[in-house]
């Protein structure tokens, strides 16, 4: 197989007037939502890696740079969440006639909201948000059309990212599902990445109707920029990836609900073209983003050096860089 290739797709021109901060493909990979310092969110149809010219929509409502966008599960309809420097989280819904309208303005945060993330669909339409003052909030869309909101202190300084745990715990034996069989009770849990160098895990207690800090992952020596909880694709354990200002990516694994989280650092010195000066376990620059693939166990990592690398656990359980994309 070829080991060096060049992409052939024509780049998409977004027509944003300032830097793009986030881009997210929808559930089917057919639409792309982008957000920018120009205070807008844009939605494009993507066909074979190109956008169709007529399809772009610009969603205006924020009064500051928009940091992140997130698509809700399609069973709830075409819904987007966006968060901004203006401290607001906006929920947008696509109308039957086309075009997007704002259906909810979440204003409980009083500082820049850095991250939004939808919960696994089994839990309902639930959104977690994190802001620069370290606060976390959870927004729940109820059956009667109302929204409920919880807000609480998450990190001492600021919070950069949130990511939900899969609704079902790994390692639970699965059997062919029979019609009418009750699936295992889903559980609400998410991880947050903070400027206090910590990653915290939060669980919802149905009895007290409140969010409780369950565990703290202490391993980074600088701000944690991103956290990504792997979906439960039948692997025997839970996986969390974290990316940090300290130029490392840590993979945290937990074998059973009662066992502790164990961390392993990705080692970019094993990757091709790695500078020989790089220290083992350190990336050349700040690591900004980590994200798990949909099917399988591939982790994508973007680093400040302008490279996106893809990582996979090999048969012996060692993480290897399988691909890299440079700009």
């Amino acid at each position: 197989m070829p080991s060096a290739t060049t992409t052939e797709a024509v780049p998409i021109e977004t027509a944003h007037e300032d830097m793009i901060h986030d881009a997210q493909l929808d559930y089917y990979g057919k639409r792309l939502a982008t957000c920018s310092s120009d205070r807008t969110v844009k939605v494009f149809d993507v066909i074979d890696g190109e956008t169709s010219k007529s399809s772009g929509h610009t969603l205006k409502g924020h009064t500051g740079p928009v940091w992140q966008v997130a698509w809700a599960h399609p069973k709830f309809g075409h819904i987007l969440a966006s968060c901004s420097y203006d401290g607001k989280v906006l929920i947008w819904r696509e109308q039957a006639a086309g075009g997007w309208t704002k259906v909810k303005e979440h204003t409980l945060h009083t500082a820049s909201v850095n991250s939004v993330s939808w919960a696994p669909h089994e839990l309902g339409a639930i959104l977690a948000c994190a802001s620069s003052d370290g606060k976390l909030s959870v927004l729940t869309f109820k059956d009667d059309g109302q929204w409920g909101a919880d807000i609480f202190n998450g990190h001492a300084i600021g919070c950069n990212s949130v990511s939900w745990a899969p609704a079902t715990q790994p390692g639970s034996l699965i059997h062919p599902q029979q019609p009418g069989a009750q699936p295992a009770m889903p559980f609400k849990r998410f991880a947050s990445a903070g400027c206090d160098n910590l990653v915290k895990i939060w669980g919802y207690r149905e009895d007290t109707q409140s969010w409780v800090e369950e565990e703290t992952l202490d391993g980074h020596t600088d701000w944690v920029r991103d956290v990504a909880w792997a979906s439960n694709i039948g692997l025997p354990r839970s996986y969390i990836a974290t990316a940090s200002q300290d130029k490392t990516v840590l993979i945290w694994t937990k074998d059973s609900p009662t066992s502790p989280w164990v961390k392993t650092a990705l080692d970019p010195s094993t990757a091709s073209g790695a500078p020989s000066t790089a220290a083992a376990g350190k990336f050349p620059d700040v690591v900004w983003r980590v994200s798990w693939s949909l099917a399988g166990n591939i982790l994508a990592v973007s680093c400040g050096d302008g490279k996106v690398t893809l990582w996979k656990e090999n048969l012996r359980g060692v993480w290897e860089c399988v691909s890299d994309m440079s700009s």
Partner: protein
Amino acid sequence: MSSTNHHLNLFPPLIQAGHAEQFIQSGKTISFAQSPLNQSHAVFPSARQDAPSIKYSGVEEQPIFFASSETSPSSERRLFIGDTSIIFAALQNLTNTAQNRGQDWLQSQETHNVIRKLTLDYINFARECWIHTSSQDSSQFSGDHYRSLYTCLSLFAVLYVPEYGYEDAPVGDDLMEWLNVHFIEPSTEEGDHLSSLDHPWEDDTFWPYLVRVTLRGLSKAATFFLGTLSTHPSDNLRRLAQQLSPLLQSQPHLQSFEAERDFAYASHRWKDKVQALRLELDNVPEIDRHDGTENWWDRLSDIVGVLEGRNEVIRRVCEDLGADWREASVSWGVFTDVRLRRQDLPEVVSQVVEDMPPDPTNLEDMVHAALFSGDPAKALSHAALLDPWLAAHMADLMQSLSLIEKETNEDSGLNIRDFYVLSYSQYLHADPALWRITVAYMFSCGETGVRSADEVLMHVSLRLSSVGTIAHSQEETNGANMKSGDLAGVVKDINATCYEYQREEVRRTICRIAAQSFVQGKEYGLALSYASSAEDWPGLGRVVDRVLQEYISAGPEQFTRYVAGIAPSLQALRMQSGAQGIFIHRLMFAVRYAEFHQRLSNRDLQDAAWDLISMFQDGIAPKSWWGVLLCDAQQLLQYDGTLLFPYASACILLQHLEEVITRTDQGSGDEYLRVLISKLGCSGTTEALHALQGVRLALAKYFARCTMIGTGEKQVAERKFGAVV
């Protein structure tokens, strides 16, 4: 550096060569989004979050690139993938059957024969694809690539999937056949060239050619050229050549014998003859061993040395001829140790490769070496780099033959087979159109595979808008189809796949997405079908609510049209056990309420009045709708022509009116008046109550009319009600 690494460059480049530092200095970084559709990523320049104040003039472009770590298969590759997936499915069937029938059955002759047959099928497809792609220029994978798959699989078959009962038989002849099929030496051109010469032995290539054909066991070619030596000036050579020919032709081959013992005996006898020839050769005087061009004696001695199976001669001859470790190893099994068994081969190969190592940059060579060395797992790791297809299918066969560890690795949670089959399915996932094949491979890989397949299935684009179009075109010819909301197109396929693999939860999730999507497109009939297929009764209730909402927002005409779309579902749902009553009730109400409006618009007032009362009497009208129904009643009460309601019915209206007003007074206005308020477009309960006062007045007048006019009308009406009340 890992040789597994794929390096991908964006084109056109986002950052010009040498400008990376400048890019980073300017406060930018690179970010990405993963596509759930395939193995691609959207890559874009982004601001570092610690420098959010960068503001550009607006002229700079903000592009997004799509890059994929896997290349989508081209059409010829797709054909190969599709054809071989059928063989994979057949083996899957076999192993599933084995699970029911036990391990003994898996090791039976019957099963072994099937596995062997399927292995040969793979080999044939690889060969076909090689022949096919060799004639094309624009193939994604060259003909040579498929040739290498062909050689690897064929070797695998020779060494690991022999005919049943032959596992412990000598393997030399089979290996030589494999070598001669795949690595043809010497070339036909060389033979043609030599046969065109009068004195071929004077040509430089003559003796090397003759040694090579001997080494390859090509006795016909050897005999032919030994024959040309009949005109050679040396008497000794002429005589020896004449003796050598029948010896080459009579070398015993295993397949000519019933029993290995006979073969071994014959080989022994034959070796004695070779020995006799060696004695004669040694008797040739030194002076006659050179013919002026060449020392023919040395060459002939090499040939006899090969036949004798002299190790050092074979090794040296191979090196001189430029032959590799494969040829040396295989010759060992044909000449040195004719009874060489599969299990002894690794020992031989390890000796050979010490001096003649395989080429580490040639993956095909590495796969062959691992297979020869009896290390199937290592063969797989090289095969995975050559082509994920090869590793997956070979691993699948290896597991069914118990050649690789079946236990899952504790760290990765996968066994060897599943690891390679999953890697291949991830490669397939690069092309979303191959989702059926992708999930078929995933579903064969334990829990991890099943969950991965679930994700792939749930993200298959439903293309519902086209379903709608199909349904519409069907409507012209067969309206019933559309109205009953038959599952169509991709959704039907995914549903079938979910049934096949018993993924009910996945199927339901997909149906819920479809239902939601149809609601958005106001295809309520289809939405209802999907909600009920998902057994999502609250969801079904929400569809009905949306239809009822149409009455409020768009009026009775639109409403009755939409209800026509959902009415056929009612009958089916009533038959269905498990369908939950409350939501079915709401659907019944929507249907009855639409009928009522239909009658109203047809001026069939008597029946309309009857409908209205029966909705109250049967208790199917939700409380929130009572106010609306009562307001509807007002115009019927005020109808001048006849008294449309019997006295008792008017009393029912009055009872309900009283309940609405009393309960509103008690603070339950929201429950009773919600719909009426939005229908009237008013802001609160006051206006709604005002409207209801109008109904009360109409009722009062109606009762007065009843008293005055007497009983005639009442009796007529009551007769109609008799059946129901």
